[in-house]
């Protein structure tokens, strides 16, 4: 019963949203607003249950984790944002989070997104057993990365053999990449529609498996 009612409610909201395809209407607007309210409310409930209660309130109430008052007070300082006279106090927790997270991110981002990528771009063009299309691919990958980097390098005018030709090759490589992304984007959007059709025809109407 619970499930059946749920599926009917879900199906009606699904159709309400699809009504937008014909014309913008009040039911669509209602659903649009509900999403915002429910997601924020859900977020509050979950955050309290999984983080605030077991990691802050319960240990403090148990009486032997007074050190947790430090993050607790820092957290509460966020709320001073709503009191204009002392709103500057909210900069303390924000500053703590900003500074430390930037420090944590720095070496790891350098490793993941820069050093490892440079390392990945340094591959042998040919090894025994490689098919011709893999060798061609490796050449395109290495030269393409370099050319695309040149295209994004705006400190020098894109003229001459290195910067001029390099950036021209770069934009071709980028266009192939964007084409692939467009193809995948189409696939993704259709997949989302498939999910809803499966819900309507399968879970709701039971006309497909």
């Amino acid at each position: 019963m619970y499930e059946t009612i749920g599926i009917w409610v879900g199906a009606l909201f699904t159709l309400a949203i699809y009504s937008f395809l014909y014309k913008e209407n009040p039911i669509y607007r209602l659903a649009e607003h509900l999403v915002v309210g429910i997601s924020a409310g859900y977020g509050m409930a979950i955050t309290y249950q999984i983080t605030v209660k077991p990691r802050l309130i319960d240990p403090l109430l148990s009486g032997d984790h007074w050190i947790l008052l430090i993050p607790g007070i820092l957290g509460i300082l966020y709320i001073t944002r709503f009191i204009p006279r002392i709103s500057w106090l909210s900069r303390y927790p924000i500053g703590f989070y900003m500074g430390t997270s930037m420090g944590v991110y720095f070496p790891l981002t350098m490793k993941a997104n820069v050093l490892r990528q440079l390392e990945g771009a340094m591959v042998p063009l040919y090894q025994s057993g490689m098919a011709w299309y893999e060798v061609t691919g490796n050449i395109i990958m290495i030269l393409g990365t370099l050319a695309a980097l040149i295209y994004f390098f705006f400190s020098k005018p894109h003229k001459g053999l290195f910067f001029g030709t390099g950036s021209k090759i770069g934009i071709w490589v980028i266009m192939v990449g964007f084409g692939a992304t467009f193809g995948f984007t189409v696939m993704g959007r259709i997949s989302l529609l498939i999910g809803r059709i499966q819900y309507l025809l399968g879970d709701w109407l039971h006309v497909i498996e």
Partner: protein
Amino acid sequence: MKRTVPLMIVMVGGILMILQYFIPHQISQTVFAYYTDWTPIIVAFALVLGVGSLTRIHSHKIRRKAKNWQYSYAVLIPLFGMPVLAHIWPVSLSGGMESPSIFHFTFMHVQVSIQATMFSLLAFYIASAAFRAFRAKSALATVLLLSAVVVMLGQVPIGELLGRWLPETGLWILRYPNLAAKRAIMLGVGFGMLATNLKIIFGVERNWLGGTGK
């Protein structure tokens, strides 16, 4: 106190965290353990800011009877109703946030349905956009178009039936030229992130202070 201390906190915190990565001493490990334990607790409170702003905007709209003010109730009622159903007054079959309950029901059947359907609308719009805007106006646009068509056909079973070369070519595009373009972008973004990190740590970038920064 209002500007200098927060900027100092950022700088000291940032430098300390960079140092702890390179010096895996017992003390630095302990500091790091406390840091990862405490930070989620601190940042959890930031949610109150979001909820507060949302409440302020919508209650203001209702008070002033602004355009479409009635819909603001559709934001405010679930915004406060959900936590109430979860913790304070769990009107449910088995209680609170567990399934089956009104809290779980609202998420699974209202939120999921609406959000999933909203995203699926994009399937219709991308088809319309492909028809109206995807033109082979230049050599570059033609390359983009061809790459998209090959990848689109290569990713679906029917592409396989049209010719084995289609999925093979599609995969080749993804694994080599696409990879080259995306790696260049990734490197660019990576350098940008590093620069931004340093700018924030050393106080060059101060937008996070908000307002006039007085």
